């Protein structure tokens, strides 16, 4: 994995179990250690992240599930 969003990925992994209790299925936007909030959709998380963090740096958007997503491409 590259360094891009490495801190945000670590924060997500560390707090995933805690967030699963109340936010399972929601989307979270994270920059550094800062969490913009929990959102119902990917689009809402992106808008919320832009509003909170601006557009100068990438921020992480992850859906809160216990397992990482699997992509199907047939």
């Amino acid at each position, binding site marked *: *994995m*590259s360094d*891009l*969003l*490495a801190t945000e*990925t670590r924060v997500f992994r560390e707090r995933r179990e805690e967030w699963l209790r109340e936010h399972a299925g929601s989307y979270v936007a994270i920059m550094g250690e800062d969490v913009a909030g929990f959102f119902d959709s*990917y*689009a809402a998380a*992106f*808008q919320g*992240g*832009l509003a909170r963090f*601006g*557009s*100068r740096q*990438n*921020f*992480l*958007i*992850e859906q809160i599930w216990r397992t*990482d*997503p*699997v*992509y*199907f*491409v*047939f």
Partner: protein
Amino acid sequence: MGIARVTWDPLNPENPFACIDVIVMNSKAYIDRQGDLGFEFRKPIKMKAMLDTGASFTVISKTWARNCKLFQTLPDTERKVLGTTIKCGEHAGSISFPGTDLRGYDPVRIVSADLLKEQFSCLIGLDILRHWKLTFDGKTKAVTIED
């Protein structure tokens, strides 16, 4: 409601795929903010995308994602695809369908990967297809898309 028609001849060995023209670029909200900061973006380029009912997400090639400078929201990570693993990233972008009145999606999650189907730069996956009604007329070899 929008409508579009594309030709599809699954028995044509030269091009047995159903394709539609797309423009993939950054989200308008992101471009507006970057514009305020003085950044410029390349003009978007139209490309062919394959309608892929076997893809769970819309996928763009890594080359195109880099070329479009798509805003990345998940780092490049090894993901399981078709029993193997390939590096995939996730981006917040927009997708529109020039020459049709189908509605575009902005922002939308776009997965970047080195595509297994190398003849395409973009696959339209089920995240967008689920909003459409697709009808294939085998006699005229036409696919009608309604949203």
